[in-house]
């Protein structure tokens, strides 16, 4: 019995290692043999909006854009961003996750975006609406069709309950929307 059990464990471990290695190679090979097709075609571009809800099944009354662009960036700030731009690079990563969600559902991508939105709320970057303890986000795709630019909602995330500390601190610090 022990020997059969050990063999099964070895087989499961072997399969796990094989799957992990296969997955790792899937990520690594395109890096070692890259394709430099920057902007080969301009596909749909994601925009992310956040909404707060009273309950899990509700509908947000207001959708606020996640990290809207500033009107302009000063020379000094532009120079600093050349050296250090963590928020912008995170936003680019979030956009990559959103683009992957255009291609098909991925729990990991949905979670990654939500995690970063929650962190932004925690830091006070996003205003929390009073008496609305749930947060969700939606992704819309902006694209050009002929001479017309259209925007379509492609994904709405499962709402998440904000922790008490996050909602209380953000509301008391920044008021309500």
């Amino acid at each position, binding site marked *: 019995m022990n020997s059969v059990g050990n063999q099964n464990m070895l087989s499961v471990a072997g399969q796990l290692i094989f799957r992990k290695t296969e997955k790792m190679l899937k990520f690594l090979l395109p890096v070692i043999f890259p394709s430099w097709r920057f902007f080969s075609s301009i596909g749909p571009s994601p925009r992310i909006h956040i909404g707060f809800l009273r309950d899990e099944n509700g509908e947000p009354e207001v959708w606020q854009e996640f990290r809207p662009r500033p009107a302009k960036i000063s020379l000094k700030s532009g120079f600093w961003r050349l050296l250090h731009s963590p928020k912008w690079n995170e936003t680019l990563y979030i956009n990559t996750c959103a683009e992957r969600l255009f291609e098909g559902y991925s729990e990991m991508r949905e979670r990654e975006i939500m995690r970063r939105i929650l962190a932004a709320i925690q830091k006070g970057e996003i205003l929390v609406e009073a008496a609305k303890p749930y947060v969700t986000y939606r992704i819309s795709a902006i694209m*050009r069709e002929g001479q017309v630019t259209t925007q379509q909602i492609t994904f709405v995330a499962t709402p998440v309950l904000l922790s008490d500390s996050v909602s209380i601190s953000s509301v008391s610090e920044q008021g309500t929307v």
Partner: protein
Amino acid sequence: MLLEQAVRYSEIILGLAYAQQSVEYIRGLQPEKVWGVILLLLSCLLLIGFQPVFVEAGLLIIACILLYRFQGPYNGGSDCMSILVLLCLFLSHVAPTPFWKQIALGYLAFQLTFSYFQSGYIKIINTDWRSGQALTDVFAITAYPVSERVRDWAKSPRLMLFMSWLVIVFELLFPLSLLNHYALMVALSITAAFHLANACLFGLNRFFWIWLAAYPIILWFQSRLMAT
């Protein structure tokens, strides 16, 4: 430029580039914060030239962990180039003979050249790029422009057309600069300015630093090519 010199210069710039990336990870979320700290430590060791083989092996392991963590690159092409530079430098150290050392670095020089040429090629075969429409879309539609003022550049079709062709022609001609040392120096100055512009307009700061890290290798490669 001598091979050893090129490797050392490249490692110094790579160390700076990784230090820049690691500080950004440290400002982010867990678990990349922790990886960022280790990355910063290894970048500093690379910068001072301490045991480059082991340091580069360590950086490669972290790069793979991050690749797995984000299910692909965190920052697209800049992560690809970072790992590629790192891998080729590491292979140049562990190569059994000078021939294989040159093959490892030659591969990096080839990828750098190809990164410009292929970019230009896929643009010139695309009618939207030839008409300037694709670049207009980059400014008007994509999430890249860093400010609304930069997004307004899309309203100047002539400027977009001019910029599109400037980029296409330069990218396609880049491999020819390998024929002459001074031509390559000029070409690399222009590409550095191009990456700087991308960093300012689209916030692609990591691309600027990491492409620079491969420049000493292409300078060595060009002198090696001309010597044959």
